[in-house]
């Protein structure tokens, strides 16, 4: 594999595709749209991308993925604005930003806090994209030698990690993943062509339309959830935004925080299953441990905002690395992007770097430009973006619901898909009520067919012998450690719970032996 050639391609080839007035405008507009949606509390980055996917179907694949990635990055940054101004994260990934952003805003430093958020998002986002450019071709080159065993193991890891980290209960995360696998197998069997779980419905022979699933789960169900929780009645008065550019003075003192959080975010983004929310939490936690003034964190420390905002944006680039190089989505959002690419006739994976180097390069360049757009719009447009908080919610939610319904219809011009979307919206709402995470389901819908295809191919290669297939798995230098990691992941909560119980028992015994025995009636 000629890595230099691949690297050269990725930096240069796509300029012709991206550097047109229309594409540049599309990228900047998409970042702006993402920021607006992200700035509305309750509307997540997943939702904004899912709802807007159908609008990209007539675009060139490179432009489409750039637009969607622009919306994604814009939404992640946009979430910083309400986090700072009204103490409500626009997206879950901005949860940690509220801790220091809001106290700064209360001190009259809202502009500085938002400026730090923009600069951190830009720095980390650019870093992660450069990592994608550097390691994407190399990872794809390694992945080119992957067989069924390796792909099977990576898919299992992705499902396990997301089931483990995306909710309070691992069993519910696993249940969501199993439901996703079940939904993913509806339709004709990939090998025999036999219909499975279609119940005689011809429209299900091709399976559920993926876009209908994600729009239902992340789009319409979120609208229902917001209304159910009466979020539309909240009318918080945000603080005024001034002196956003003053944040540049903070960049040098925060350089190590930015560097560390960018690395943490990228690494967590690369790991299949984790995502920007986890990246932001871990980065904030790490910063608190390493900070010279840990007591100040949570009370308006700029390093808290830098740690949180840089990690969540870096995670997006990291997740793109896994998605483009391996064809395995790193989180729910890259699963949506992967689904959108497939609709465009592009199959992410190692061969993408060989077959469509110009497209990969265009995606890489667009991501860099999206980060530049994020910096410019974020710095100079923050005070106008904040006005989105004044938009009457009843009107806003009616438009979002319409976008979900019409967008789903537009995919194939099918009213059946709209009904499927409605059913998944209901399922998403039920999931929220039962504390079942949604991300494992969406990821499993994409990973299910990969898992099944590679499992059965592995069995075929071993003459249908499950033991021999198992041997292939445990002797593979890549699949074996990955599966071991999966095993550790499942054992970890059990071990931790046993240790906690034993600690609690010891503490109870110690407390009982230290406290004086209660006086009995006889003694009295």
């Amino acid at each position, binding site marked *: 594999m000629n890595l230099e050639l691949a690297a050269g391609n990725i930096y240069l080839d796509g300029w012709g595709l991206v550097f047109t007035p229309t594409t540049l405008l599309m990228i900047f507009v998409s970042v702006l749209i993402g920021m607006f949606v992200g700035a509305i509390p309750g509307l997540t980055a997943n939702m904004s991308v899912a709802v807007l996917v159908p609008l990209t179907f007539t675009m060139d694949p490179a432009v489409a993925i750039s637009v969607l990635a622009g919306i994604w990055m814009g939404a992640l940054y946009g979430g910083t604005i309400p986090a700072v101004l009204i103490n409500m994260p626009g997206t879950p990934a901005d949860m940690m930003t509220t801790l220091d952003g809001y106290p700064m805003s209360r001190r009259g430093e809202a502009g500085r806090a938002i400026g730090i958020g923009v600069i951190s998002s830009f720095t980390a986002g650019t870093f992660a994209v450069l990592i994608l450019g550097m390691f994407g071709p190399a990872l794809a080159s390694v992945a080119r030698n992957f067989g069924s065993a390796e792909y099977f193991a990576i898919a299992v890891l992705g499902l396990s990690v997301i089931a483990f980290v995306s909710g*309070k209960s691992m069993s519910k995360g696993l249940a969501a993943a199993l439901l996703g696998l079940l939904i993913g197998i509806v339709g004709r069997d990939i090998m025999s062509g036999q219909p499975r779980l279609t119940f005689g419905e011809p429209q299900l022979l091709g399976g559920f339309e993926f876009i209908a699933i994600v729009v239902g789960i992340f789009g319409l169900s979120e609208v229902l959830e917001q209304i159910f929780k009466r979020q539309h009645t909240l009318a918080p008065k945000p603080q005024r935004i001034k002196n956003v550019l003053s944040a540049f003075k903070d960049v040098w003192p925060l350089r190590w925080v930015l560097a560390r959080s960018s690395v943490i975010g990228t690494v967590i983004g690369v790991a299949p299953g984790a995502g920007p929310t986890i990246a932001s939490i871990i980065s904030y936690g790490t910063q608190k441990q390493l900070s010279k003034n840990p007591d100040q964190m949570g009370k308006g420390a700029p390093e808290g905002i830098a740690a949180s905002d840089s990690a969540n944006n870096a995670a997006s680039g990291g997740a793109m690395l896994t998605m483009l190089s391996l064809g395995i989505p790193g989180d729910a959002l890259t699963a949506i992007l992967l689904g959108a690419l497939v609709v465009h006739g592009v199959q992410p994976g190692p061969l993408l770097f060989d077959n469509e180097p110009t497209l990969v390069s265009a995606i890489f360049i667009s991501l860099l430009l999206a980060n530049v757009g994020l910096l410019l719009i974020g710095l100079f447009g923050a005070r106008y973006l904040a006005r989105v908080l004044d938009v009457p919610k*009843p009107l806003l939610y009616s438009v979002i619901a319409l976008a979900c319904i019409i967008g789903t219809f537009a995919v194939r011009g099918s009213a059946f898909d709209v009904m499927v979307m409605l059913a998944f919206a209901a399922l998403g709402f039920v999931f929220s009520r039962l504390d*079942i995470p949604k991300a494992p389901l969406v990821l499993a819908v994409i990973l299910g067919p990969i898992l099944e295809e590679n499992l059965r191919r592995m*069995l*075929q290669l071993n003459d249908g012998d*499950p033991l021999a297939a198992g041997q292939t798995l445990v002797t593979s230098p890549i699949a074996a450690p990955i599966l071991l990691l999966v095993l550790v992941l499942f054992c970890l909560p059990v071990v931790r719970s046993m240790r906690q119980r034993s600690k609690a028992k010891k503490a109870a015994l110690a407390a009982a032996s230290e406290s004086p025995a209660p006086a009995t009636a006889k003694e009295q």
Partner: protein
Amino acid sequence: MTLTRYRNVATGVALALLGGGTLWAVAAMPWDRPPAIDPALFPRAIGFGLILIGLVVAALGAYALRSGATTAEDAEGVPIDVEIPEELLAEHGEEQTDWKLALGLSAAIAIYCLTAFQVGFLTMTALFVIAVALLLGHRRTPRGYISLVIFSFIVTAAFYFGFFYLLGVRLPRTLLP
């Protein structure tokens, strides 16, 4: 907390039933095929998995109900070893919910989905925007009504132009415009 645990038991039972349903749905497929070419291999594995995980969820819920033990679900946040500061958790007060409004919105959405592509896209879309905005508390003053009607026309035109004109999606022939 108790309600959550009852919900967990019910969720577990529902999952196990779904697993059973999956096994029933593929029961007609032969069992004697080699696994590599067996289309029922994966559905059966998922069915058994759902039954197993359903039983685990139900058992954990039932155990927590009986013993009053604290489980991971009683805690806030994600199950990773990162301390979530108390200030953040303190923000989560008593949740205010409105079932009636959620059901009303669901009904409006369902009616719109059933009629928009059968009765008339433009008419039903404009009506949908007005109905949902009023349902969600848009101000009911003469000025509010006028602005809402204008808004609904603009939104309907924007969606029609964006999706059916620019993207070229074919709209079915209907009775009303």
